[in-house]
């Protein structure tokens, strides 16, 4: 894996959120999920920029879903992991796991 393919920690979080949300990985949901998991407020600008950057890198792709059949329902862009995205994710996480061998993090807020 080349040097440019290293994921930043926020990128890693976003990719994990997308993987976790699966078919529901809309921008809005991703942001909410990140807030829930980290317990910190997340700005749309930061989250959406990262999503766009990951898409430009080819780690994510977009699928435009049909509008929901309710009043004012709109079509949404759903983010999906590409093969490269899955590879990058497993590489980064496996590195993390290897590095953490024998250590259990204490209670973090």
């Amino acid at each position: 894996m080349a040097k440019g393919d290293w994921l930043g920690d926020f990128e890693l979080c976003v990719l994990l959120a997308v993987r976790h949300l699966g078919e529901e990985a809309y921008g809005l949901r991703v942001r909410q999920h990140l807030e829930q998991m980290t317990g910190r407020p997340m700005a749309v600008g930061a989250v959406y920029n990262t999503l766009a950057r990951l898409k430009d890198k080819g780690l994510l792709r977009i699928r435009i879903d049909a509008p929901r059949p309710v009043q004012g329902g709109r079509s949404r862009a759903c983010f999906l992991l590409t093969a490269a995205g899955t590879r990058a994710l497993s590489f980064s996480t496996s590195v993390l796991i290897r590095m953490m061998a024998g250590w259990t993090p204490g209670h973090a807020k």
Partner: protein
Amino acid sequence: MIVTRLQRTVVRWLAPRGEAGGILDDLEEEARQIAGERGPRSARRWLRWQIAHSTVPWLTRRYREWRTDSWRTMTMMHRGWWLDSRVAVRRLAQSRGFTTLACLTLAIGISSVSTVFSLAYALWLKPLPYREPGRLVWLAARHEPSGTSASLTVDEFGFHRNGSQTLDDVAGFVYGASIARIDGEPVRIVAHNASPNLFRVLGVRPAMGRDFTEQDATTGTRLAMLSHQAWVRRFASDPAVIGTSMMLDGEPSEVVGVMPPGFTFPRGLEAAIWRPAAFNDANYGDRRVVQAVGRLAAGRTIAEAALEAETRMRTIGRPDAHGARWGASVSAAGTTASRTSQMSFQALLGIVGLFLLIACTNLAGLLLARNASRRTELAICLSIGASRWRLARALFVESALVALVGCLAGILLTAYAARALSTLMPAHTPGLDDVGVNGIVVGLTAMLSALSAVLIGLLPALSLRSLRPSEALSGSRTVVRGASRAQRALVGVEIALAVVLVLGAGVMLRALRGMVEQDRGYEPRGLVALNVSLPFSDDSYLQTATRARFFHGLLDRMRAIPGVRDAGATTGFPGSRLGILGSAPIAAPGGAQLVGAVHSASPDYFRTMAIPIKAGRAFTAADTTQAPRVAIVNELIAREFPGGNPIGHHIPVSVPGDETALFEIVGVAGNIRLSEHIGYRVFIPLAQGSPYWIDLVLRGDESVLPVVRQTLRAINPDLLIENDSSFRQIISDSLALQRTQSAFALLTGGLSVIVAGVGLYALLSFLLAQRRREFGIRLALGSSPRRLFRDAMLSALRLVVAGIVIGEVFTAVLVRALGSRVFGLTSADAVAYVGAGALVLVVALVAAAIPVRRVLTTDPLPALRTS
């Protein structure tokens, strides 16, 4: 709606393009959720927080995107230029004849300007090699009655040196020459005596050794500072020269330093050796020999320094021995350009500038014609979506390429032309070695080329504005007519400018011939001259009488040489590189105060030169050292006396080395001159004022010079013989500037006629090609070819005559504005105007007749069929 209108606007402004809509929808949806769970206030607060904290990420991303975009645009642009250049190269290569002609015309035009500039730069414009040369000034004395300037006395020099507020320091030097022996041959070395602070005032330090100190002038030991050139030539660049001793005028002098290369002072009479000297009464008395150069104090101007020097001189001003008062004059020393040379340079630049303008006009016309035949192609480009700017750029690249080639060829041409031009100047002109191509000349050439590219490309690019694809594609002729109007105007301008140059060349050549052949007051044909100097070191020539006897004997030996019909001696004939003997302040009974330059002359001098004696008598052998002192004045002085008759009056003559004495005027000689200046001249007999050097003038042709040298060597091998040449050469050297100017005027005048002819030829070829169909129809309808020829020629004639008239009017205006300032321009008369006009007319009509004949003699039927 929870997201306010303002928030929407802000997000639309800040968020990346294309994403704002989605973001706003998401924000709205989530804010609603929050409002439902925690109330609208929380939702609004949440919204505000979101937008505030997204601003920085959004702006960062927008900036990154903008940077990537603009880089991409630039690369595209770059690629566009490259493409245009390749297309232009191919297009130019297709029409080799046109390209060669265009590049050549431009190269000649550009290089003519560069050449003149390189000459002017080397001779006059180059900054002198001193520290802040703009602050250096010459200090001189001004003879109040006549207003003429002269060197300072030692007293005045000391006065200026001490207590001036406007000058930081003042240094002085006295011209001098020493005789050194190099390889057994006596050689005159220019060796000036300088005040020890001279180099500090000029702001130049010796490259080797040490500078003079104030003590050097007073200790009495003989010291010498070498110029770089003298060090290289006389000492073979010996690095151990410092401290060695050299023989000067028979006495040893210690070398204390070597000046850096490139240092020359003063320009025109560079010293090989400088000797420290104390300027005091004991050495120089009250003779006017000190040249003074000062450095302006910070923030002071020349005018302030002049005012101060004048005021201070007035406070000490006492009349000199002849009752005349002396003031002070201060002038810039940091420039070499005299008024005459500056004017010549400007005139030359004007000539070549006009020529470059003609060349550019011609090229613009040619390109315009080329593009006119490409209008269909350009119209197609326009209609399939090329912007006008893009097309203009493509056309412009073409002219830029021509200019680029013209620039390179121009630099090459300049290198050759500058060398050729420098041979027109007298060989001893200071700075002549530096004439050639240097960084500044290359820069100027490049700038001219860029300017030419704009001039050439502007009109064709502008003509695109009127290009209507519909008209051009439907074969309408109106567009062509519009373009041809511009072309006609260009050719008219070319012809007008050509007339100006031809007229200028004509009058300059005539004026030059007039100056060569003018009556100078003597007969320069069959006259040769040379300088002979006695060795200073030889004590046997200490007495004036001994020197006079020696020179008279020498003249007798000269006359005995076969081929020498007559021989005379003087000091300082017109154009001599040796100076005058002294000065004679004359108070004419008529009230006029004037200063005459004093020359000595042998009895046969006037006869040898064929100078008429207008009144009284010439000198005779009876005017010996012991005889009463007599003088001959020239007519210019005689005019100042009542009735034009000065004979019998006594005038004071001061000759360096002798006391001032009264001389009786016994004769009046005709005025003589080299070029325009005559000046007040006083002659005294050689026997009564013999210096160590004379100008020998011999009636005979140049072939006698070797024998003369031989004979002089035989008389005394220590004699210094210099500058032997014919008077024709001396006169020709003195007219170098005018000759250069005339040569340029002639060259550019001739070329401009040819260029204008080519322009007219191209224009008519193009216009007539457009009218082939019309000619075909007229021929078919029974019109005679002769009549068609006349019609076509008449339209050309109208253009040519209009151009000539405009050119002549323009010249008349120029003559009025600059008449007296440009050499020869005042002599522009009716003959010159008519002659120049006729010459241009003939060339233009010949150039026009060729394409007209060609069109009329080809079969019009194919043309009719194709249309």
